[in-house]
C-alpha cells in the first residue's frame, strides 16, 4: 500500500521530466522543421509573408530552382570529392600514427601526444591568412594543390582532421590487448599483416567514427572554401553555392532553405548511421 502511495507522485514526476525533455527537443527541432517547411512552401506564399506553421500545397519548385542553377550538381560533387578524400587520407594517416603512438615506446612519444592534443585545440580559423600564402606558394610548385583547386581544401582539412582522429583512435588501438600481437607473431604473422588483418578490423568502429567526424567537419566548411577558391567558380563547394541565394533585401528564402536541406541530407544520413559510435568516441576522447 505504502509503496503504491509513494510511486504515484514519483511516476507523475517521471512523466513531467520526460515531458520537459521532449518539449526541449521540440523547441530545438523547430528551426529545422521551419527550414524544411520553407523549402516546401510555394514561393508566392513565402513572399507574401505566410507564417502558417504548415502548408496545404507543398511544392518542389524551390528544389527545382536550386538544382537548375548552373553548376549546382558540380558543387555537390566538389563537396563530396573533397570530403571523401579527406576521410580516406586523414583516417589512414591518423590510424598509422595512433598505432605508432600506442604500440611503441620511444622517447618522443609523450611529447608527440601532447603536441597532438595541443594541435587539436588550435583555433584553425586564426590560421586562414598564413594558409592562404602557403597554398599560393604551393600552387606555384604543384598547381593542383594550390589556391582555386580542390587539392588545397583536401590538404588543409586532412591536416586539421588528423589530431582529433589520432586522439580518438589512440583509445581504440590501446584497448586491443598486446597479447593478441604476440599470439599473431607466434602464428607467423608479420607486423604488417597483424595491423592490416587483426588490428584494423578490431578498431573499425573507431575508424568509422573518425571518418564521419572528418566528413562532417569538411563538408560543413565555409571559411576555407570561401578564402582559398577565389576565382575558379567551377571548383566551389556547396556552402558557397547556397550563399548565392542569400542576398540582402531580396533573399530567395525558398531557394536558400531548399539548398540547406540538400546540404544537410548527407550529413544527417552519416550522422544517424553512426550516432552511437560518434557520441561514445567523443566522450572517450574528451575524457582522455
Amino acid at each position: 500500500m505504502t509503496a503504491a502511495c509513494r510511486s504515484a507522485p514519483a511516476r507523475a514526476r517521471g512523466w513531467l521530466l520526460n515531458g520537459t525533455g521532449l518539449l526541449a527537443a521540440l523547441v530545438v527541432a523547430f528551426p529545422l522543421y521551419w527550414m524544411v517547411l520553407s523549402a516546401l512552401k510555394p514561393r508566392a506564399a513565402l513572399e507574401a509573408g505566410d507564417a502558417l506553421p504548415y502548408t496545404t500545397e507543398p511544392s518542389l519548385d524551390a528544389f527545382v530552382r536550386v538544382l537548375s542553377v548552373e553548376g549546382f550538381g558540380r558543387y555537390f560533387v566538389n563537396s563530396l570529392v573533397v570530403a571523401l578524400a579527406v576521410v580516406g587520407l586523414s583516417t589512414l594517416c591518423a590510424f598509422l600514427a595512433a598505432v605508432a603512438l600506442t604500440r611503441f615506446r620511444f622517447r618522443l612519444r609523450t611529447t608527440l601526444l601532447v603536441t597532438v592534443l595541443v594541435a587539436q585545440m588550435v583555433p584553425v580559423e586564426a590560421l586562414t591568412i598564413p594558409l592562404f600564402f602557403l597554398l599560393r606558394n604551393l600552387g606555384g610548385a604543384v598547381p593542383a594543390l594550390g589556391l582555386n583547386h580542390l587539392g588545397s581544401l583536401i590538404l588543409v582539412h586532412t591536416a586539421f582532421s588528423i589530431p582529433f582522429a589520432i586522439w580518438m583512435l589512440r583509445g581504440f588501438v590501446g584497448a586491443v590487448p598486446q597479447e593478441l600481437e604476440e599470439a599473431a607473431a607466434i602464428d607467423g604473422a608479420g607486423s604488417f599483416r597483424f595491423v592490416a588483418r587483426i588490428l584494423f578490423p578490431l578498431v573499425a568502429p573507431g575508424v568509422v567514427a573518425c571518418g564521419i567526424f572528418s566528413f562532417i567537419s569538411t563538408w560543413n566548411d565555409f571559411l576555407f572554401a570561401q578564402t582559398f577558391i577565389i576565382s575558379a567558380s567551377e571548383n566551389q563547394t556547396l556552402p558557397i553555392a547556397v550563399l548565392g541565394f542569400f542576398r540582402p533585401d531580396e533573399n530567395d528564402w525558398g531557394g536558400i532553405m531548399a539548398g540547406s536541406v540538400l546540404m544537410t541530407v548527407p550529413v544527417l544520413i552519416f550522422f544517424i548511421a553512426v550516432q552511437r559510435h560518434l557520441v561514445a568516441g567523443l566522450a572517450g576522447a574528451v575524457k582522455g
Partner: protein
Amino acid sequence: MASSTLTPPPAAARARRTGSARPGRRGIARWAVPLAPAVLLLIMFVAGPIVWSVWAAFTNAALTGAAAANTEFVGFENFQNLLADPAVWNATVLTLIFLFGSAIVGQNLLGLALALLMQRRNRVTRAFVSTVVVGAWVLPETVTAFTWAAFLGREGSLNTALAALGLPPQNWMYAAPIFAVILANIWKGTAFSMMVYSAALQEVPPDLKESARVDGASGVQTLRHVTLPLIRRSILTNLILITLQTLQVFTLIYIMTGGGPGTRSETLPVLMYEQAFDFGHLGYGTAIALVLLAVAGLVSAVYVRALRAEGSV
C-alpha cells in the same frame, strides 16, 4: 580498456624504462615511418602557419600595393595600432560577450540541465532528445546561420509569434545583433556540453545520491553538494573546450550579420577576416589572429596541465 591497464610482462617493462621497445635503426623506422605522414602534415599546415603568423604580425605584409611586393619588418607597429584601434577594443568586448553569453552561460548551463534531465529517463525520450540536440550540432554552420537568419528576420517566425502577443515586429539581427548570434550559437553548440555532462553523470555512483536523499537532502542540495563536486573535472574540461570552440566562431556571425550593423556584432575572427581579405592588411589581420592564437594557447596550456597532472597523457 581494462586490458591495456594490465601489468605488462617484465621484459616489456624493462624495455619501457630504457625508452625504446626495440633499439636500433630498424626500431626507429618501426614507429617513425607510420608517424611520418601525420607529423609532416601537422608541421606544414599547423606549426608552419603559427610560426609564420608570429613573423608576419611584425611586418607590413599586404595583399596588394607596394607592401605586397616589398614586405618590411615594422616591429611592434601592428600591435601599437591594435591597442589604439577602437575597432579592436569593440571586437574584444563583443568576443567576450559572445563567449560568455553563448558558451560559458548558454551552452554550459543548458547542456548540464539537459544532461541532468535525461538521466534515468526512458530510452525513447533519451534517444529522441539526443538525436535532435546532436543533430543541431552536426548541421553545417552555414545552414544554422540561414535558418536563424530566417527565424529572427523581419518576416521571421519570431516576429509572427510576437505579433500574436501584440508586440511590434522588428529585425532582430538589426535590433540586437549580438544576441541574435549568441542565440544561434547556443542552439548549435549545446549538444557538445550535453554529451560531456551525460558521460560524466554516468560515472557518479547512484548510492551516493541515494544516501544523500536518505539523509534528507533535497534535489537541489544533492546536486550542489554531491553531483557537481564529483563532476567538477568534466565541468573544467567542458568550459575549456567550449571556450576554444567559441573563440573561433566565424561562419555563423559572418553569414547572419556580417559583423554588422556597423560593427555591432564584429567579433575578433570577423574583424581579422575583414582586415586581411577585404582591406588587404595582412600584417594587421595576422596580429589580430596572433592575439586569438595566444589566448587559445593559454587556455589549452591550462587544459594540458590539468590532464598531465592526472596522468592521462
